[in-house]
């Protein structure tokens, strides 16, 4: 019997309609755990690197993590992978919600789609019964609406449905995959799903998920719940509100937005409005949020409440989480939060990424103001800030007129438009739009994370180490006192020594070597989460989380029966990290691509930045161009990767 995992993948060929339940190799679980790790392995094995993200051969994978569907709190993530049409690199995007556990209960760890369906279809997975069903009646329907329609049509209120909206159908590069309160938004995998002709995947499962050492696992879960309760009652002091607790930033709970509205940038990540927040706005925004918000909600088997049901009179109900209430509002320079909740409803039905899309829209209007785009491109566009944002959103998701060019994101749109438009696509890393944040002094840890993160999204790599120093020694001592999550005591000393000013401050402190260590720890936790399917909100993302390097090996051992210790888990992380790096290296990723937006910090230190990258690559066992060496790959049982890179001339003989 297989434990924690089901041991089966569902392989669906959309061209022939062939559906197979395929037993998987347990050895791969030992090497890569599951989720992102095994997805990366399958992606490496199945397709050559020189392939278009819209090629029929691309395997689009929906995976549960290794712990998904077990009683481990927060083990509910769905990990979706393919190649990103926007970055052209490996695209992995994740969502919480209820879908992945349901897939486990239906008896599968992954669903893998090959080829394309000639007609728009949806997939209905009900335990052993799997059907490809016509979805022509759902064409153009909203992503939220589609989920409801399918549940009604199947008469299955307990089915979990992941769906795309119009944006995915039209292969918009920022198209998301929506499911309940969650969405896999980043890197345009909704476009790949639409390209394959899949409108939605509905799942219902009523089978067991088994555990190897049940009593031990149950006790570990209890410890995690106890710690969550403790952390909810004891927020981390001396850090700003959104960093104090667990979960994703509690944007649905908090109504005080002084910090975001005055420190994050408005428009196309351009303008800081330091005097925005006042009593009148505070009162109005609070009223708007409390009346729109019907209930704070969670994902499967998680006590947090990061999401909310949002119901604004006159438009249909939807669910929201995190920061998207502000991204459209601020990009459009609208001072009323009511607009944020209303346009996010339309955007969620269309199924678009709430980070990239508003920036693309703001970018378009900057180009218009600069005379690079003309009035002819905006014929029929209203002139008020709200109206013009709705108008351009409609054009983008329909790929109409200028919307067709903008639908590829700011990088590709700027390239196509030319005439100096490139300078306006200023907030990208590796062709992908970033958080609208511009800061003063370079932070060496953040420099490395922005530059080297394979997910190309800061929230998917940061988390365990404080973002800035504590003001006093008392505060530092208080912070490190119960910091049980550190993998090594040395991290405590860095926090104790880190100052706002002077020798031991940014950008030269943490030192280059310390910065590399800190980044390695932070990304390690994300890679483990993404293989296990545990939400970053209970693990890699917040300070002092319930899951960490010391209890994760115990969870894995008790769940699967595989012997796992901290060293072994670090090895799995390094294997997955290097495999994904190798996938991207095969797609052309090099050192030259590894840089934060030019204007992210005012004060830059080119020499130091080069040293940071040198040290990071060296620490990783990569050559100076960011390519894993033969020796490192051998250490990680990835000799087949080294051979491939050598054959392609990416790794040269004698170069280690």
């Amino acid at each position: 019997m297989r434990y924690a995992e089901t041991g089966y993948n569902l392989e669906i060929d959309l061209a022939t309609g062939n559906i197979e339940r395929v037993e998987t190799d347990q050895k791969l679980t030992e090497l890569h755990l599951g989720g992102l790790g095994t997805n990366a392995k399958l992606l490496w094995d199945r397709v050559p690197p020189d392939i278009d993200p819209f090629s029929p051969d691309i395997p689009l994978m929906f995976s549960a993590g290794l712990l998904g569907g077990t009683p481990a709190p927060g083990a509910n993530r769905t990990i979706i992978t393919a190649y990103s049409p926007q970055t052209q690199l490996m695209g992995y995007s994740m969502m919480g919600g209820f879908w992945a556990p349901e897939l486990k209960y239906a008896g599968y760890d992954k669903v893998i789609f090959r080829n394309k369906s000639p007609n728009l279809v949806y997939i209905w997975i009900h335990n052993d019964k799997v059907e490809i069903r016509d979805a022509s009646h759902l064409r153009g329907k909203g992503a939220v609406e589609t989920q409801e329609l399918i549940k009604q049509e199947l008469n299955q209120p307990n089915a979990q449905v992941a769906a795309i909206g119009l944006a995915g159908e039209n292969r918009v590069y920022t198209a998301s995959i929506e499911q309940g309160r969650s969405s896999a938004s980043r890197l345009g995998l909704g476009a790949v799903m639409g390209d394959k002709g899949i409108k939605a995947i509905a799942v219902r499962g009523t089978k067991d998920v088994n555990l190897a050492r049940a009593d031990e696992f149950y006790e570990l879960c209890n410890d995690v719940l106890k710690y969550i309760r403790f952390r909810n009652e004891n927020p981390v002091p001396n850090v700003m509100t959104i960093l104090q607790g667990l979960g994703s930033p509690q944007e649905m709970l908090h109504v005080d937005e002084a910090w975001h509205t005055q420190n994050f940038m408005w428009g196309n990540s351009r303008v800081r409005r330091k005097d925005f927040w006042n009593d009148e706005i505070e009162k109005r925004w609070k009223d708007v949020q409390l009346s729109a918000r019907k209930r704070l909600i969670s994902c499967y088997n998680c006590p947090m409440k990061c999401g909310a049901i949002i119901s604004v009179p006159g438009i249909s109900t939807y669910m929201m989480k995190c920061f998207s209430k502000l991204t459209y509002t601020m990009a459009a320079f609208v001072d009323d939060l009511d607009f944020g909740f209303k346009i996010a409803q339309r955007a969620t039905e269309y199924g678009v990424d709430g980070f990239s899309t508003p920036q693309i829209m703001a970018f378009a209007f900057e180009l218009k103001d600069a005379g690079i785009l003309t009035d002819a491109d905006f014929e029929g566009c209203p002139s008020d800030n709200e109206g013009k944002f709705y108008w351009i959103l409609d054009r983008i998701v329909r790929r109409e007129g200028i919307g067709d060019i903008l639908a590829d994101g700011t990088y590709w749109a700027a390239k196509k438009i030319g005439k100096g438009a490139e300078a306006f696509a200023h907030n990208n890393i590796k062709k992908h739009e970033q958080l609208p944040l511009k800061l003063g002094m370079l932070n060496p840890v953040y420099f490395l994370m922005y530059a080297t993160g394979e997910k190309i999204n800061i929230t998917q790599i940061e988390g365990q180490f404080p973002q800035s120093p504590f003001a006093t020694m008392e505060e530092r001592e208080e912070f490190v006192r119960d910091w049980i999550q550190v993998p090594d005591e040395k991290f405590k000393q860095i926090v104790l020594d880190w100052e706002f000013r002077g020798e031991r401050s940014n950008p030269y402190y943490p030192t280059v070597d310390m910065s590399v260590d800190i980044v390695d720890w932070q990304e390690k936790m994300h890679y483990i989460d993404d293989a296990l399917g545990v939400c970053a909100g209970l693990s890699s993302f917040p300070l002092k989380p319930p899951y960490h390097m010391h209890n994760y090996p115990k969870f894995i051992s008790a769940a699967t029966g595989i012997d796992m210790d901290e060293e072994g888990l670090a090895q799995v992380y390094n294997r997955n990290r290097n495999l994904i790096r190798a996938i991207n290296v095969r797609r052309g990723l090099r050192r030259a691509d590894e840089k934060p937006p030019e204007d992210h910090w005012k004060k830059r230190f080119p020499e130091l930045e080069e040293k940071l990258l040198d040290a990071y690559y060296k620490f990783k066992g990569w050559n100076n161009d960011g390519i894993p060496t033969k020796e490192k790959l051998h250490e990680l049982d990835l000799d087949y990767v080294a051979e491939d890179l050598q054959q392609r001339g990416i790794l040269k003989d004698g170069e280690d």
Partner: protein
Amino acid sequence: MAKIKKKVKTIKIDLDKCNGCRACEVICSAFHATPKYSSNNPARSRIRMIRDPMRDVYVPVYAGEYTPAECMGRDKYIIDGKEYDECGFCRAACPSRDAFKEPDSGLPLKCDMCESEPPLEKPLCVQWCLNDALIYEEREEEVEEEAQPGDVEAALESLVGKHGLDKIADTVARMSKKS
């Protein structure tokens, strides 16, 4: 008649506090697995979330008595302007729905308040509900001692419920002739 003390176990359900996470289903099904905690499967749980997020309907319901027959009519509740589903608050395992039946055998399930030896402090659904939507209360009530129907009578009552008194009476008469 003599007064006796009876222990009443209650789970108070505060719908407003429920975040819809279904941890109650997870741990219920794990506790009732054999061996204990060795597997989990919400479809085997004795508590179910009646859940319709788009209408903000979140109702945890516990499995009560098995009933062989559907109700003759159905009820709909409207509370604070929100309409709840027919059967939305009903605890019975009944032919009209799949809830509270083992997915393989179709046998009915019933909440036993996590009865175990040694007894748990609280049922596990309550322990795993960190939002305190489920609150366990125990109280003693003094009740008048009644003649309790015997086991046989209880069994017969359930048969009467299923087949009707006449049929059972006939059968008993026929059986007694044979013996």
